[in-house]
């Protein structure tokens, strides 16, 4: 479970594939049982504390969701929905939002930087922040609208599934701390078994449409939900019913990326030559067109959907 062998790297062509031999590993998963989540936000705090993140203290905007949205320094948060069904039954649905760690990760596919997004053999999709240039393609590639780009360092951030804890055999901070056990962590197989027993229990309690959310459109996920109303995931603060990677991103991967890789190789060659011939670059103004105001150099590409309005945060 704890091994972190990389099986996929972003922007890596078939000419230079990620090492894919040590793949006989257990896939891990986090199972979030929405039916026993009390929305306490312990997972948010544990995430921030473990990952040394301190987001801003915002304002109350009339709801319990705080911070109001995912943020480069808020990798998970609770989204609260007040729902009344056709029988006038009221439910307060609370969903922990964050990276789903897709088996077929749109972010990784969209990322143009070799190795800036990797997938480990255990299924975790991890951003290698030091490589990130903040282009925002991962934001565009994510069907769940999860990555956020920092104004501070212009890099994309999201949940790592606590890959540093997994690496030493520990559970993610959110799963460990969860007071009610609404977040379980283990092998994907066992999490699916657990989900089945939870769904059966919910069926017994009258939730006919209870089910597991492990969407096939992204090859399944390593963060799954048990939903009381799996027939209508949108009810849970807009959880997509059938998430898919945008066809444009798929196209980018298949058509454009090889070209980009060639361009990248050219760039490598150029820089190597540059380094050999001239020595390390010195900083010049042109290196920082964004200046010092902390703004991104450019908006992420808008021709690729979906684009988060928060991408530039």
């Amino acid at each position, binding site marked *: 479970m704890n091994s972190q062998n990389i099986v996929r790297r972003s*922007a890596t062509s078939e000419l230079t594939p990620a090492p894919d031999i040590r793949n006989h590993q257990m896939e891990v998963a986090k199972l979030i049982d929405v039916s*026993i989540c*009390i*929305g*306490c*936000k*312990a997972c*948010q*705090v*544990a995430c*921030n*504390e473990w990952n040394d993140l*301190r*987001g*801003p*203290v*915002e*304002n*109350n*905007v*009339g*709801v319990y969701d*705080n911070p109001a949205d995912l943020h480069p320094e*808020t990798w998970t948060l609770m989204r609260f929905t*007040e729902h009344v069904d056709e029988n006038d039954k*009221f439910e*307060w649905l609370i969903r922990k939002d964050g990276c789903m760690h897709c088996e077929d990760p749109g972010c990784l596919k969209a990322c143009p*930087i*070799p*190795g800036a997004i990797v997938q480990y053999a255990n299924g975790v999709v991890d951003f*290698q922040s030091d*490589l990130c*240039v903040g*282009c925002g393609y991962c934001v565009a590639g994510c069907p769940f609208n999860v990555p956020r780009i920092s104004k501070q360092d212009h890099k994309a951030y999201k949940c790592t599934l606590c890959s*540093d*804890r*997994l*690496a030493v055999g520990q559970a993610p901070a959110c799963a*460990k*701390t*969860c*007071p*009610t056990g609404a977040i379980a962590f283990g092998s994907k197989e066992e999490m699916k078994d657990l989900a089945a027993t*939870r769904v059966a229990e919910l069926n*017994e309690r009258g939730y006919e449409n209870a089910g597991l959310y492990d969407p096939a459109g992204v090859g399944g996920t390593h963060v799954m939900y048990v939903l009381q109303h799996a027939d209508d995931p949108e009810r849970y603060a807009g959880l997509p019913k059938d998430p898919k990677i945008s066809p444009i991103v798929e196209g980018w991967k298949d058509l*454009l990326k090889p070209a*980009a890789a060639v*361009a*990248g190789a*050219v*760039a490598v060659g*150029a*820089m190597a*030559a*540059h380094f*050999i*011939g*001239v020595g390390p670059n010195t900083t010049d103004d*042109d*290196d920082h067109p964004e200046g010092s105001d902390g703004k991104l150099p450019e908006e992420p590409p808008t021709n690729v959907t979906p684009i988060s309005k928060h991408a530039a945060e």
Partner: protein
Amino acid sequence: MYGAKTNLGRRGFLKILGAGAAALSAQAIGLSTAEAQVSAAVRPFKLLRAKETRNNCTYCSVGCGILMYSLGDGAKNAKPRIFHIEGDPDHPVSRGSLCPKGAGLLDMIHSKGRLLHPEYRAPGSKEWVKISWEDATKRIARLLKDDRDANFISHNEQGQLVNRWLSSGMLASSAASNETGVLDYKFSRALGMLGIDCQARLCHAPTVSALAPSFGRGAMTNHWVDIKNANVVIVMGGNPAEAHPVGFKWVIEAKIKNKAKVIVVDPRFNRTASVADIFSPIRAGSDAAFLMGMVRYLLETGQIQHEYVRDYTNAALIVRDDFTFDEGVFSGFNAETNSYDKSSWTYARGADGLALRDETMTHPRSVLQLLKKHVDRYTPEMVEEITGVKKADFLKIAEVIGSCSAKNKTLTWLYALGWTHHTGGAQIIRGAAMIQLLLGNIGMAGGGVNALRGHSNIQGYTDLGLLSLRVPGYMNLPSDKQTSLAQYLEETTPKDVTPGQVNYWKNTPKFFISYLKNQYGKHATKENDFAFDLLPKWDRSYDMLAYFDMMYNGQVNGYIAQGFNPLAAMPDKNKTSKALSNLKFLVIIDPLVTETSNFWRNEGRFNDVPTEEIMTEVFRLPSNCFAEEDGAIVNSGRWLQWHYAGQEPPGQARHDPAILGGIMMELRRLYEVEGGACPEQVLHMTWDHDTYHDPYFPHPEEMAKEANGYALEDVFDENGVQILRKGQLLDSFAQLRDDGTTQSFCWVFAGSWTEKGNQMANRDNTDSGLGNTPGWAWAWPANRRILYNRASMDKDGNSWDPNRQILHWNGEKWVGADVPDFPATIPPGGPAAPFIMLPEGVGRLFSAQGMNDGPFPEHYEPVESPIAKNPLHENVTHNPTARIFQNDRERMGNRTDYPYVATTYSVTELFRHWTKHSHLNAMLQPEQFIEMGEKLAAEKGIKHGDTVKVTTKRGYITAKAVVTKRMRTLNVAGQEVEQIGIPCHWGFEGATRKGYLANTLAPGVGDANSQTPEFKAFLVNVEKAEGELA
């Protein structure tokens, strides 16, 4: 060839490659594949080889285990600093979990609000100045002594010796350790103070007032893990998913493993309700009517555990003929004093002086028949009229509750401050106690009346007697009228009521004299009544509401607030502020900046006070926090858990024992040198070099051992066999003596630190059955985990439910998963009943003389009520025994000006007014808000996130509006009632948005039994904020 492009910057070059490839940062490709491979490694694990220290969370009473990781390995040259905290997986309750508060502890320890230096604010000054510890200590001791010497009362007007000092008082912390609590108690009583209190006054005092007369002890009957054994979990007057999330783990466990039904009845659809099977809204302040309706339903439908009711409650006992109840008033009422003569509230006695009994429970004067008559008025229709709970919902809930009268089904009742914060708070709790007795659920695994205590050590501070009129171990301080030890013991030691009972309180003299020996050591002798005269005697209550009223009226000069923020915590902040302004001096001992310490500072509209006119001298002394001390705290399940320091207090902050020790030793020096008022009271207190290795800084182990107690001489049993040698730590309170040969500060803690070592530090989490872990920590009394557990079996010792067998008789004694709450060698089949702390031996449906406002609960309207009359008796609308001071009465609003019901509470992200200092928590709920229903919001033109102004007769606050479907309009007594929810967490200090203290709004009136304020039901007006308030 590319080398020739020497002037091309990196970015410029990439631009040439086009927009897509521009994203190919040079950082990404670097110069070697090896570098890229290395950079692909995960973040290094940050805890490797860090020092791990075990502690318990400082916030709520679940008492979760935590692991604190600090720099260094303990070597002398490395200064440990905690840099990460997570849950202790070995802890039987928390099992590695922490709630949002606990998970954010790190930012509390390192909060920007930590106090680092002693500071002083001069009269009229606008600022703090640094002061040395020596100067602060000397000045404070001088102020205290001068005030005591000037105002000490040695004799009352009747000439009785009273030895009390009323013009200075003290508030004690609720998160400090027991060991600090021992010193708090000694400190205040050594000076003769009566104006002492702790947080229990503002939270669970009604629990003790209600549960002790019902069962014998005033504590949570079961424990957190035991909740998992329930078939039904009912939550009323509490919100454990938010206030005790990790304890709530065991509700979810019951739900999943036991298919338990969870029922929530609350003014708000809260986060507990979000995972409940049944929810009903209820009007705040009407719970007693709901519960009496439930009692009526159970009696009428016969859904009671008959054998249990007959044998283990006082249902069969006969009540005196002159006990009556008519039109809202019980017999013996005195309208002038608003109090009862309780002499008729007792059993009819036979010639032998023992209570009469009718085994059939059909005698018209039997408790059961009187109860039936009393609750007859509470029909489902009446319940709906008073509470707003729809009849159909009430009956649906009643059916589920009634199902737990089966011997093999248990219901656990969880409540907290939603019940205690009412003028009839204790009687609401009585209602649950009665239902659980009728269902046969007390003493059962998965049953009980489970008072979910608030602060992490408020149970401990209650045990230690840090309340105005208490003595440690649930004994009362003697009153003026009790002029001798003999008289006190005669009046407080209960006589037998029914034959053959254990009546364990008959040992009161052993407990009390051992306490006196602890307090006054060699100065307590048989000849001088064990220094009984040195105890301050009381004439009236000096609870917080009473004491702050005295302060408001200019009758108090000095006050010490240790780990307490009364400006935020007391009701009616504007009154509290004026009261504090009347003090000559205020001493703050706290790890954090509190609003109270800055009460004199003008914070604009959030605290608009005339700073220059406030002549109070204020001292602010920085103390340690939980992570910086060794000691024990007591969780709600009565577990004393020992914890360890993970770092030193920051800056110049000192440990509480050192702060108190410094002031006390200076006071002693002054009394030795100068004399003064009753110097013996100060100097005879055991706070010297004979008691502590360093009385300036007593060590926690020393207080822990004195709280347990030890032999002062060799002690022998009745057969002359030596059971203790001089100096030996006690194994149990059974070894206490009333002849001065033993001492124990707090008898219920006896057994916590024995010759076998510190039992509170035990860490064997083996489950002995049904989730009991007797090897983990130590629980009072006698390490019993489920109180009254003898009642889990019938008289002959057969478990009511074989699947819930806690104990069995092995031919010689009771053994099993828990320590028997019963003499271990009294065999089954005898007359002794399970409730050993009550002289009857049985649980009380009729509380006899135990309560101030009646032996049966009755619904009275809150002092500020939205309806004109009590539907039950229009001439007696409010609790007739509720105490209201004149100036508080003038600050009460009416339903015309203030038409909406307000209730205050905590939300899960924050803990009272502490966690606003933690950035991690401030992020989660950054700003004061209120909750209101959609209908009212529409009427008022208020939308999500609008700023609103909430007003009572006492003041106003502004807040953001959370408009929600979760607050519903109720129909009560023929009118629509809207309720507004007001969380109490924010203020003008801390990392959250600056704001008002929400307790500006709450009224200054308390529960008739315990004077705990009515925070949970009062009247407000609400409107969209205009002008500068918007």
